[in-house]
């Protein structure tokens, strides 16, 4: 773990020997890696490898069992309850299971992120949410409720929600799993744009296509451990 000072400064995520187990099930085991500011990183591995668990640890959806982790300057094992919402507002998450609120419209789901972040101006919210729904191709569904959406539409709503707060870090858990190639391309363009804007992007996927189309770093997981088969560099 020798790092020069400037690299330390550029780190936005630092994991050192992080373990997460649920009862006897080890979802992540002794995982160490670093992600620098404005990185574009893929996390990949077979089903059940621990990719989503890693995402959950990052936004504090779960607390890690052991190890040392820093996200955007905050030590995840020391974070106080008051700090959690602050950290989460700096992170946009596209959840694998979308996590849309069933009885709010698509518009309201997306707008909620801004309300939560303290935006008061209704017109600003309307404008930004409208723009984003336009970008993911859901303008005509703005007033639809998630249970009436198709799988791909739900996923795009989740994408819009993750991006609307202009977060520093975007965690995208299989963001194109339910999407056709054209829609996938649009979502990736959005992620690229966020990256260009300076955000750090972390994408989990098992879509080989996706990996091959990007010249990005990839972290390979298997059974909760890092196995750097190709393209990865040991943390």
């Amino acid at each position: 773990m020798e790092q020069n000072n400037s690299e330390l400064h550029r780190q936005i995520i630092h994991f050192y020997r992080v373990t997460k187990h649920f009862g006897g099930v080890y979802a992540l085991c002794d995982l160490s890696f670093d992600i620098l500011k404005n990185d574009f990183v893929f996390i990949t591995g077979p089903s059940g490898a621990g990719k989503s668990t890693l995402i959950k640890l990052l936004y504090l959806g779960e607390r890690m069992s052991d190890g040392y982790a820093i996200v955007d300057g905050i030590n995840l094992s020391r974070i106080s309850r008051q700090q959690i919402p602050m950290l989460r507002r700096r992170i946009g998450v596209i959840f694998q299971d979308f996590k849309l609120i069933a009885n709010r419209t698509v518009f309201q789901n997306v707008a909620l992120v801004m309300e939560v972040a303290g935006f008061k101006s209704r017109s600003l919210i309307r404008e930004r949410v409208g723009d984003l729904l336009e970008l993911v191709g859901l303008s005509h569904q703005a007033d639809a409720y998630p249970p009436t959406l198709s799988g791909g539409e739900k996923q795009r709503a989740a994408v819009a929600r993750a991006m609307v707060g202009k977060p520093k870090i975007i965690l995208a858990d299989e963001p194109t799993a339910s999407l056709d190639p054209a829609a996938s391309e649009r979502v990736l363009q959005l992620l690229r744009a966020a990256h260009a804007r300076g955000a750090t992007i972390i994408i989990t996927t098992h879509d080989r296509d996706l990996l091959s189309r990007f010249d990005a770093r990839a972290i390979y997981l298997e059974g909760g451990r890092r196995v750097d088969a190709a393209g990865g560099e040991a943390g």
Partner: protein
Amino acid sequence: MIGVFRRALGDFIRHRFFHGVCLFTIVLAVFIVSAFALFFINAGDLMAAWQRGVRITAYLEADIEKEQARAAAEAIKQYEGVDTVSYVPREEGFAWLKDQLGPHSSLLSDLKGNPLPDALEISIIRELEDGEVLDRLAEKITGRPEVADVEYARKWLHRFYGIYNLFRITAFVMAGLVFVAIMFIVANTMRLILYSRREEIEITRIIGADEEFIKYPLYLEAAMLGLLGGLGGTGLLYAGYLAVMPKFSSGGLLQFFQVRFIPPELTVFIIISSMLVGWLGCYFTIRRFLRI
């Protein structure tokens, strides 16, 4: 602040069915509590009205002048528990006795003259709660030099007060129990509302809401549900009261007694309790959900 209101209102619309069923439950719960209160208040009034007849007769010594008697009456009026004191000349007393004996009044015609002394009739305040107090009062009156003898329905009154007190204690205990039970029902209802929304709450937290953002609209909703439930429940009772009372009164049962609605202060108390309990049920449940 406006945001909190707006969001609480949105939640009401979003969760129509669940909120509707829960509101219905709260209305019924408040209705029961206030019906209880209505019943006990009026039963208490009724017993108090019954008690109105309670009086002590103090027979005066034979040599007491009218002036002295009036002075004694004034003095006795100051005693604890005394409502009014009136002077009853021996003639009136005799007429009353005759009346009391009814068919046997012929007995009295055999008497030579009126053997009764003058008397003071002492009526007792309605709030008196205890036979012992009455006994003490009687003793105090007996102790006065003007008074030869004191008479009152001691046994009957002790029994009445026994029952009256039993009733009051029971009413109090019952009202307490029902109130607590209803409180739990309202609180439970709030829990169910929150429980049914735990996923929504969870998602809102995950996208960065702090506790305040989540809590305040929920508190407001809970209090509003409590308020609406309180208004609905007492309103329902009032409607029932208005609908039923005229029939009762015309039935003649209540000629001597006016059933009254629960007093406004109590109504307000019930409604505020309902709000408070709704909020409390929400408060304690929400703490469970907000642990990470």
